[in-house]
């Protein structure tokens, strides 16, 4: 074998609903009309939540907020393919997926209000709290998916992260552990082309992010991340594969249409033309036309959806504000350990004593 090929790999890319609204009918996932509308409404709900949150932040009511505008299909499509017992292991920009999985919008707002309460996952929902250190959470998802495998159960863990995150060694370690131990895990890399200001060309020389799976001997696949039907299809296949102990990396090609967070100003590092180009590829718009073309969406339905979302969000904002009034600073001490050690108890007592004197105590 003086000089021979010993291994070959290909990376496949999927698109069901193209930008020009052509549809690959064979690949259209088997979803009911109601489900299709649910996909649509989910994307819109997240979009509106982001818009309202940005506005609230601009008025000084919220802390730093990371909108997912433009990435709704990548997240909603994958989250929608999950089953009841499945786990979601998110990073900090996962509003669309979390909403689909059952996190109420007021929790997302509470989190942006700097309240730990916002990360308190509703009981019964398999969701880890947001991970802020980029690239640190896929390993947790592998631990969960591995746990499922060790216990002979068949739920999967789906974890979300960005193009930038793939540069962190932890993400590669996650792929590699998943491969060795058949962890029931699906990795969703949202390639939104930016890590804050850093474009993908400075992130890696790899031509796709999906091919990073090859290093770990697991499957990688790319999908048009602005095509919710394609994403759903790919995710469904990946999740089933992962249930059988074969982890998959999905690269969803999308675009972060707004700022990195409300602290960021993208005009410092990218051209408005690029943003307009991607506006035209907006995942909600594309799917809206699809639904209209199929006669599933008319103005009336659209209005119903909008009204439902607006009233939900108005309520959510009210509830979050109320909750904000009620935070108890002493909570800081209460969740450090199961039992509070004496020195911490002493600190809490001193803290309470000092605050006893204050009017807001």
């Amino acid at each position, binding site marked *: 074998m003086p000089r021979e090929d010993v291994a070959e790999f290909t990376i496949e890319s999927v698109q069901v609903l193209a930008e020009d609204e052509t549809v690959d009918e064979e690949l259209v996932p088997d979803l009911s009309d109601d489900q299709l509308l649910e996909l649509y409404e989910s994307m819109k709900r997240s979009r509106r939540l982001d818009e309202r949150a940005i506005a609230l932040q601009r008025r000084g009511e919220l802390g730093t907020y990371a909108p997912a505008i433009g990435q709704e299909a990548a997240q909603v499509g994958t989250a929608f393919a999950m089953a009841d017992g499945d786990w979601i292991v998110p990073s900090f920009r996962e509003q669309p997926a979390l909403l689909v999985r059952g996190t109420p919008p007021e929790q997302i707002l509470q989190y942006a209000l700097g309240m730990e309460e916002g990360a*308190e996952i509703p009981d019964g929902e398999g969701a*880890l709290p947001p991970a802020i250190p980029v690239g640190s959470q896929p390993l947790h998802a*592998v*631990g969960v998916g591995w746990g499922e495998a060790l216990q002979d159960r068949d739920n999967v863990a789906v974890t979300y992260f960005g193009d930038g995150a793939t540069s962190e060694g932890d993400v590669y370690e996650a792929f*590699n552990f998943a491969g060795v131990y058949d962890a029931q895990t699906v990795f969703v890399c949202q390639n939104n082309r930016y890590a804050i200001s850093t474009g993908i060309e400075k992130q890696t020389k790899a031509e796709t992010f999906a091919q990073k799976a090859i290093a770990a001997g697991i499957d990688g696949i790319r999908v048009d991340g602005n095509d919710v039907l394609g994403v759903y299809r790919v995710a469904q296949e990946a999740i089933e594969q992962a249930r059988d102990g074969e982890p998959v990396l999905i690269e969803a090609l999308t675009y972060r249409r707004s700022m990195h967070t409300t602290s960021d100003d993208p005009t410092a590092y990218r051209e408005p033309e690029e943003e307009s180009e991607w506006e035209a590829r907006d995942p909600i718009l594309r799917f809206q036309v699809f639904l209209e073309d199929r006669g599933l969406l008319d103005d009336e339905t659209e209005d119903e959806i909008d009204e439902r979302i607006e009233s939900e969000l108005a309520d959510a904002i009210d509830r979050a504000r109320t909750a904000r009034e009620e935070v108890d600073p002493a909570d800081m001490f209460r969740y450090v350990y199961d039992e509070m050690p004496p020195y911490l108890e002493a600190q809490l007592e001193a803290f309470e004593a000092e605050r006893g004197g204050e009017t807001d105590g």
Partner: protein
Amino acid sequence: TENLTLVQAVRDGLATEMERDEDVVVMGEDVGKNGGVFRATEGLYDEFGENRVIDTPLAESGIVGTAIGMAAYGLRPVAEMQFMGFIYPAFDQIVSHAARLRTRSRGRYTCPLVVRAPYGGGIRAPEHHSESTEAMFVHQPGLKVAIPSTPADAKGLLTSAIRSPDPVIFLEPKLIYRAFREEVPTESYEIPLGEAAVRREGSDISVYTWGAMTRPTLEAAENLAGEIDVEVVDLRSLSPLDEETIVDSFEKTGRAAVVHEAPKTGGLGAEIIATLQEEALLYQEAPVERITGFDTPFPLYALEDYYLPEAARIEDGIRNAVEF
């Protein structure tokens, strides 16, 4: 009881808990088939199978990170770092995640994880194999830190660590892994985290230490007997510290020394001193001596005996404190 070395007691503690609770899984580099490079997991692979004693890829962050996921999932992982000097690749997972999962989720998720690592010098090992940086972990809220100095404590503390609903950094003094044997109960038992042990009573000076330094400290105390009556407190639990025992002893003696292997500056000795003067300054008759490693990287082994505190240096330090 059984007459065991410290490393055998660790193994026994693991085996006992694994039998008691099938959610306990052991994972790490070479912990399975090979039984661990120090044989701390010897035979567990054959006894409990590859799903509970897991040979992992060579990646500390991967080990701890996946173990955190397992812990959140409901298992009780015991992750081995092959040497404490190799815990740093996992540092982020430990301080940013293991330590914070409970706080972050307001108790919805906990992290019942034990990270075991042999630590400390004195075995002629290569670079990075002799560190003891317990102070860094003590500074991180949300973690507990324990270091046994005897076989019986090793088993009892490890049992508590495994049953702890919160993450514990469990550091094993490899210098004394096989240095002596002790009768260790066969059945399962806990030595609670947060309780120091007075290893030797004395009235002239309180010497605080832990792990492998306990032996030379006791040796120094014996050498000084008749001249100076030394009380030796083995902290065992570094986070939380047993402030009560620490302070009580000092109130009795009014003088103290701390002995640790780690570099002096920013070491745990400083915290003990700060606590003593906060709680018992009015009893203090002399500066608390710090008898520690130097503020240099741990040297290659040709010099390690010069670096590590031994009985003679400890005696000198004690004398300094007493003769002040």
